[in-house]
């Protein structure tokens, strides 16, 4: 059974289990235990599985390690410390591994010193790191003399499980610590790790103690099950949840830097932003500023220094595109208190100790309550200090969003995480890994797999389909031997083929490759990189944005493209490959309700003060919100939790339809594509889509104008999943995602015998495979996986369905209006440009239509 830790142990109780040097060291260094330590240390000592959720700076890492260190010291003292791995620490952040090692080696050395004072010698306790950076020399040293504490990543753990000799070393693990669980649970790296852990447990000498460490995340019961796993009866393994995420006080303020976010010109807005930022930086000792993008971080740091020379040398940018040296340098300066402010994208959100920060500023919505708390939690290093955060909204929708977000954060209304279910591509890798180690009974392997959280409900049929694929059963009979990576006979399976082991080593992992194309100016100066798929679509004359500047595409040569700077030109090609953080469905619904509430206020004279009071926002922000809503109400309708607004606007070449469905980008993604597919079917045309958190836009050619009846009909789609599945055919999204799934599922190999394969070729194979599999094997496991991944992980088809049911039940009514220009609420959607296109199903007809259209234009030109 999973329980919530209720007992907070006293200092004396915890000290009583510690061996003398550890106790003495701890007393001198810290004196007293922090809340997570009080709840967790003794329980881990007793052998309980524990999930700890607590803010940064609360001694979380030590609460996980203390029991284990204590045990190692005890063994050392008694001369019983052996050369084997006792503790395995897994973190998704490879960059942090060295920090963790240092943070362990320091205390271990200090404890050794204390022991010496107390009159005895302790043997050295070794800490080792094993990642893809580890040399084979170090690895062989590690094999001969294993470290007592091993630090690794999920990917390196999977490989270690198949290292013929080293895996023997892993059998002795007694404590497994998984850090940064919040960064894993929601993606396939987490699914991959969950299976690795069960495989490790299966080969281990004993049940090890599992310790999970996480930042604010919800619901913790699910995360605990994810870490602890399940037994063979399908019941979660027992353990404790330590939730001290409330321990730290946070104070969040929402600001708008100008009165009017609609009509203020951009230059005035940025003047106001920088002057406010400068003010905040001056008022505080050290300020941490978050932007949502890396180029944003660069721009803010640059502008602050340019506008306020007093900050020269005192403000730095920090993001993942910067070199490691630069980042380390910034981190060191920060720790030493030499900087007034650091501007970061996401790189300083997690992990590393960054010293004393007394204010965190978020520019733009962080899109999730959890992330907001995580970022703001970086302020006020000590647990008892209040974390102070300011969120600055730069546009109208942003302001509304952060107002609700901050309100939810204050009330601890967290976003729910979604853990992927039965990802079959990840299962392929592990079943192959398992087959490489020994011959398995099918039933036995199925049991191991189902102990992992993501696969707890995996059907035997799905499991077998993966085994059958690996055994080559989907290939033509004569080719079976060539493809097969395992044999499968009489209820057993094992490895097949000489190259299989190499294939596993080189292709394990879940993060897809995205080849980067370098961008040069004509005089051969490199400016940056873009994704290969983006670069491919460019045509000479196209203008696009890179790192905040605009460039015109001239030509491509091999893996490079050449451009000319076009300062101030309007981009003709939107950068639609950068995936933005999605707003959660829960938060989106709260914003719908807020819209309803604000709508009720706009005619009242005390609207501003009411809003200020209830949502704790400053006056200027409240005024800006009320002005925005009044503007919308005057021009059109305010969509809210009871109303969906659909607007039709005529453009030069097209009709545009704005659907104000505030259900978050992921659900809108599902809904918009299904709608676009229906329109494409009715009208025989391609349909362009633009999506954001607040709604979506469909763009159709002039001859395909939709009537009000047709627009209403869209909301009555019966089988959303099926329509969506058909809408995905021929989309770039499906092709790209299928390549990712085929890569993970070892259908298309990323690397083979040291060679990395060109993405273009992988893509063309993916497209052909997709076509053939759809015709011949519609039940092929990786084909089903790609649809599942897109609909459930990338999109949120479930909540899109829920939303449609509300419209059907008339809880939400649809209002259709026709406008000359889009209403204020539609501005942001209009500015996006394009997200994707649903192409006509009949390719031949589509090309014929393109032909007619283009020939008309050519005729019109001459």
């Amino acid at each position, binding site marked *: 059974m999973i329980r919530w830790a209720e007992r907070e142990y006293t200092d004396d109780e915890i000290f009583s289990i510690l061996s003398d040097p550890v106790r003495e060291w701890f007393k001198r260094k810290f004196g007293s235990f922090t809340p997570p330590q009080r709840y967790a240390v003794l329980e881990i000592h007793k052998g309980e599985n524990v999930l700890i959720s607590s803010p940064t700076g609360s001694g979380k890492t030590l609460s996980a390690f203390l029991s284990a260190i204590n045990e190692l010291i005890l063994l050392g003292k008694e001369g019983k410390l052996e050369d084997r791995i006792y503790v395995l620490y897994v973190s998704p952040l490879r960059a942090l591994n060295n920090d963790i090692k240092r943070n362990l080696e320091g205390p271990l050395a200090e404890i050794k010193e204390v022991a010496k004072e107390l009159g005895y010698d302790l043997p050295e306790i070794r800490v080792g790191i094993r990642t893809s950076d580890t040399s084979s020399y170090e690895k062989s040293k590690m094999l001969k003399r294993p470290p007592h504490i091993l630090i690794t990543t999920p990917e390196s753990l999977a490989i270690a499980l198949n290292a013929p000799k080293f895996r023997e070393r892993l059998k002795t693990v007694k404590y497994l610590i998984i850090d940064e669980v919040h960064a894993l649970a929601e993606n396939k790296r987490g699914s991959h790790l969950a299976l690795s852990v069960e495989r490790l447990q299966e080969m281990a000498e004993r049940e090890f103690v599992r310790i999970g460490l996480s930042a604010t995340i919800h619901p913790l019961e699910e995360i605990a099950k994810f870490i602890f796993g399940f037994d063979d009866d399908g019941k979660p393994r027992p353990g404790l949840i330590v939730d001290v995420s409330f321990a730290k006080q946070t104070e969040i303020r929402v600001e708008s830097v100008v009165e009017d976010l609609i009509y203020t010109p951009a230059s005035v807005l940025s003047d106001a932003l920088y002057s406010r930022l400068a003010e905040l930086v001056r008022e505080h000792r050290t300020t941490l500023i978050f932007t949502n993008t890396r180029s944003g971080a660069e721009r803010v740091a640059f502008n602050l220094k340019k506008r306020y020379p007093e900050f020269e040398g005192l403000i730095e940018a920090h993001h993942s595109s910067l070199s490691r040296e630069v980042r380390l340098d910034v981190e060191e300066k920060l720790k030493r208190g030499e900087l007034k402010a650091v501007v970061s994208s996401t790189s300083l959100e997690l992990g590393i100790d960054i010293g004393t920060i007394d204010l965190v500023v978020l520019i733009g919505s962080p899109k999730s309550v959890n992330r907001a708390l995580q970022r703001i939690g970086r302020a006020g290093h000590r647990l008892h200090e209040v974390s102070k955060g300011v969120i600055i909204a730069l546009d109208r929708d942003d302001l509304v969003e952060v107002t609700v977000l901050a309100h939810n954060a204050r009330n601890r209304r967290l976003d729910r995480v979604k853990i992927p279910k039965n990802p079959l591509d990840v299962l392929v890798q592990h079943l192959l890994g398992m087959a490489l180690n020994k011959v398995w009974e099918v039933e036995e392997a199925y049991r191991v797999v189902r102990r992992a959280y993501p696969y707890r409900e995996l059907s035997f049929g799905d499991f077998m389909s993966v085994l059958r694929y690996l055994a080559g059963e989907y*290939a*033509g009979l004569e*080719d079976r031997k*060539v*493809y097969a990576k395992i044999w499968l006979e009489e209820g057993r399976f094992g490895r097949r083929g000489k*190259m299989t082991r190499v*294939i596993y080593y080189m292709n394990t992992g879940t993060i897809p490759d995205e080849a980067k194309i370098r961008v040069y100016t004509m005089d051969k100066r490199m400016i940056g990189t873009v994704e290969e798929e983006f670069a*491919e*679509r*460019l*045509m*000479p*004359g*196209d203008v696009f944005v890179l790192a905040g500047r605009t460039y015109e595409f001239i*030509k*491509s*040569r091999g893996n490079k493209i050449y451009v000319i700077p076009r300062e101030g030109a309007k981009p*003709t090609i939107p950068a639609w490959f950068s995936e933005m953080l999605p707003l959660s469905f829960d938060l989106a619904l709260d914003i719908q309700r807020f819209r309803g509430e604000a709508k009720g206020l706009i005619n009242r004279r005390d609207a501003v003060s009411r809003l200020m009071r209830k949502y704790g926002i400053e006056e200027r922000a409240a005024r800006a919100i009320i002005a925005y809503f009044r503007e919308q109400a005057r021009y059109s309708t305010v969509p809210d939790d009871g109303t969906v607004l659909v607007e039709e606007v005529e453009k030069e*070449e*097209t009709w545009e339809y704005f659907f104000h469905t505030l259900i978050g980008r992921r659900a809108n993604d599902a809904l918009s594509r299904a709608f676009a597919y229906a329109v494409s079917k009715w009208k025989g*045309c*391609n*349909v*362009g889509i633009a999506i954001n958190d607040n709604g979506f836009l469909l*763009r*159709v*050619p002039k001859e395909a104008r939709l009537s009000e009846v047709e627009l209403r009909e869209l909301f009555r789609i019966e089988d959303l999943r099926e329509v969506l599945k058909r809408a995905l055919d021929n989309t770039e999204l499906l092709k790209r995602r299928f390549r990712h799934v085929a890569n993970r599922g*070892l*259908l*298309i*190999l990323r690397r*083979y*015998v040291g060679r990395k*394969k060109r993405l*273009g070729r992988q*893509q*063309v*194979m993916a497209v*052909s*495979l997709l076509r*053939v599999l759809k015709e*011949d094997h519609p039940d092929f496991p990786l084909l089903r996986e790609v649809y599942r991944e897109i609909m459930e992980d990338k999109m949120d088809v479930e909540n899109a369905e829920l939303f449609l049911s509300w419209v059907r039940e008339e809880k939400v009514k649809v209002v259709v209006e026709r406008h000359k220009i889009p209403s204020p609420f539609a501005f942001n959607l209009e500015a996006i*440009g*394009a997200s994707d*296109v649903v*192409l006509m199903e009949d*390719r*031949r007809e*589509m*090309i*014929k*239509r*393109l*032909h007619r*259209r*283009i*020939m008309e*234009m*050519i005729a019109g*030109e001459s």
Partner: protein
Amino acid sequence: MKLEFLPEKALLLGDSLVVADLHIGFEEAMVREGNYVPKLLDRVVSSISKVLKRERPRRLVINGDLKHSFVPAWRERRELEAFFDGLSSYLGEIVLVRGNHDVGVGWIRKLGVEIVDSLELGRWKLVHGHRLEEGERFIIGHEHPAVRLRDEVGASVKVPVFLRGERLIVLPAFSPWAYGNDVTREIVSPFLRKFDVSKLRVLVPIEGEVLDFGELGRLTRVMRGL
């Protein structure tokens, strides 16, 4: 001499049928590298057979890159045998104009295939196109030409094309695996650098017909506006 562009990505030149870039054995090469690749050879064979039956040409010319791998392998040889076997009911002449991928194919002479480096048919000279040759009017392959088409709602599709000029004709790749090289962005064959590409007409083969999109230069200019 009669010149007809066929929707099957083949060219009818007098009584000769010309195709280019078949890249037979591509699947085997991919399988050797550990991938799981369906075989499409049957489609290639049936597609050529269909045209041969309909058009009844006296000669079938493969304008280079009949096969894929630079390293001859027995599996590829088996594929080539299967390919010619599939065409066994065709009794006309078969000529291979050697392409840069066609290494170690001498043995197919035994199957009655003639191998040449270039072939003159009427006023046209057929070469694969990977290196420049002396001559006036050329028909080449090698480029795998394609063009990306756009429309007003933001659709973007890449289609294989014929390029047709007074002195140069470029054939699309016949292989269903060909990725297609967008000629508005980058060109591969030295022939295309020598001739003015913007004046070439773009012909798009689709099922049952070939659509003329006009000159490449003008097409590119118009689509830029979309």
